[in-house]
């Protein structure tokens, strides 16, 4: 349904060109949940913002191809993109407070979104807003539509944003760290909700997070990103039971266990993610990798057989 090929996003800065996304390709099939995981600066958000046509920075250069149901999105006019965005492809952001305007009620905001895409009376739109709020488990939806965002808790706001994203029954939903700002007990509620809605609406979901635990709960397929490239991708089962890329393995190892014996020391990854301004020509993870060897001065290529990794250990030259 969504097919991204060799996507490159770079930003011109005073210090030079920053290649935020460096040749990323992936597909999203109908009705699946693709988990995108990576550390800050790994390009997980930027790559999906590019899909949504939301990179408005005049210094950004977007190359490659993004096809949505066969239609090319790169270079699409802002007007055509607006018709698609919200209706076919919807997005949920990390901080619901920035996605909602503080000066209108949430009911008004949901109705506005519906009326922007469909010819429907104000009354009918309001009724739809109530139904949607009901669907995302907001108590007393008929009264809740009259509330302003500041009157809601963080979890409730995120539910309102999800209701808004679902208002036009999108076939693709991009969720960018939707639970990161929430407490664990509320996060569990929201994850349940996303799963339930994904079943009911049969939307495809791209779920961006830095939390491997959340990925394990929600995703069907997983894509691990590092420094603007895909380090590994595969089905959830493959990726968690047999991680191929040393980065994926190290990431899983560095999470303290919730049960069993506590390790004396955590296995940590030395160093920090690289600055994208001065990219090396070799594997970006090599300086931090425990398994690096001579070949790692070259750039590894992502294999293409379902469970893929960009590592010379997996795919020798």
């Amino acid at each position, binding site marked *: 349904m969504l097919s991204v090929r060799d996507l490159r996003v770079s930003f011109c800065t005073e210090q030079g060109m920053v290649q935020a996304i460096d040749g990323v390709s992936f597909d999203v099939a109908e009705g699946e949940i693709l988990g995108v995981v990576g*550390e*800050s600066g790994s390009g997980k958000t930027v790559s999906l913002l590019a899909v949504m046509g939301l990179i408005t920075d005049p210094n950004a250069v977007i190359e490659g191809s993004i096809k949505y149901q066969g239609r090319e999105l790169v270079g699409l006019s802002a007007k055509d993109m607006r018709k698609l965005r919200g209706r076919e492809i919807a997005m949920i952001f990390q901080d619901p407070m920035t996605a909602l305007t503080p000066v209108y009620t949430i009911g008004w905001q949901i109705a506005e979104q519906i009326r922007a895409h469909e010819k429907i009376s104000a009354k009918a739109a309001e009724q739809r807003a109530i139904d949607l709020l009901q669907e995302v488990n907001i108590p007393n939806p008929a009264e809740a539509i009259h509330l302003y965002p500041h009157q809601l*808790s*963080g*979890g*409730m706001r995120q539910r309102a944003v999800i209701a808004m994203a679902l208002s036009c029954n999108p076939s693709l939903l991009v969720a960018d760290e939707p639970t990161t700002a929430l*407490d*664990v*007990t*509320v*996060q*569990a*509620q929201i*994850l*349940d909700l996303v799963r339930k809605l994904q079943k009911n609406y049969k939307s495809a979901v791209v779920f961006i997070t*830095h*939390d*491997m*635990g*959340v*990925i*394990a*709960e929600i995703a069907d397929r997983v894509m691990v990103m590092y420094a603007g490239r895909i380090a590994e991708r595969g089905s*959830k*089962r493959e990726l*968690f*039971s047999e991680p191929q890329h040393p980065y994926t393995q*190290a*990431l*899983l190892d*560095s*999470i*303290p*266990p*919730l*049960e069993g014996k*506590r*390790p004396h*020391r*955590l*296995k*940590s*990854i*030395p160093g*920090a*993610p690289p600055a994208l301004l001065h990219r090396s020509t070799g594997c970006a993870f090599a300086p*931090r990798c425990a398994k690096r060897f001579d070949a790692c001065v070259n750039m590894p290529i992502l294999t293409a057989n379902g469970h893929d990794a960009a590592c010379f250990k997996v795919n020798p030259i």
Partner: protein
Amino acid sequence: MSKKILYEAKNVSKRFTVGSRFSAKGRLTVNAVDNVSITIHEGETLGLVGESGCGKSTLGRCMTRLYEISEGHLVFDGTDISRLSMRALRPLRAKLQMVFQDPSASLNPRRRIRDLIAEPLRIHSKLNEAQITKRVAELLELVGLLPDHATRFQHEFSGGQRQRIGIARAIALNPKLIVLDEPVSALDVSVQAQIVNLLADLQEKLGLTYAFIAHDLSVVRQVSTRIAVMYLGSIVELGNAEDIFSNPAHPYTQALISAVPVPDINKAGSRKRIVLSGDVPSPINPPSGCHFHPRCPVAQERCKIERPSLLTHSNNRTVACHFPIDVRRD
């Protein structure tokens, strides 16, 4: 326990007033910390966990007297510090340090790292310049930074390195107790493990005692000797770290642990998840009886009326619940 008690908070409460007499609801009182008592033994790490708004950070700030407490007593190393004047408190501050969540907000962007680390030494110690330079180099090495980092500014560092600088400042004066307020929450997972290890190393090397405040349960389990779980300003459960996780006694603790997503697909299916309904209530107007009863899966009539007090059960477990799970009363 045989170990010496280093820090004791007795019946500490902290109230904030919100609004003014001109606002719609008038002046309201928030019981951010509500009658909390904890003891910290020498050499241990006490973990404080809870969701946002449970008062864990407020308690941490009260402990170091960054906030004035409303009621109760704070005893540090045998001295009651709860009513001491700022002047009298000063020498004790050297022994009672704090590390904050956001390292870039706690470091002055216009000063060099060596000056930031030397600042506590200049204020509290009588070292001369040469000795200070030597000590700063020592501290940088201790926290895993390079000597030539000393002349740089904080913006030249990554988040993990900045937190190392914050830790170097805190340990500069050989403190006894460090209150760590979400020290790894702002960091990436791969870097988080480095800092957790660093803190463990320093504790061993320097004989430090920690109060570790965090919302990430797996991190708290990793670092803590004992854990206190807070809900709406009060402690609901306190006990040995590993025990609490394998055998939670309070329904809230149980739900909290079960809600943590585990990055293990084999266990993800078999773990029983308890999804609590609703949100954390407002501490301005807490529910009657047990504060947790509206969200509690096992709440009964009694919980709505009578507030459970903290009782110590077998195995040194303290729980505030009328119907604790699976622990024997002594």
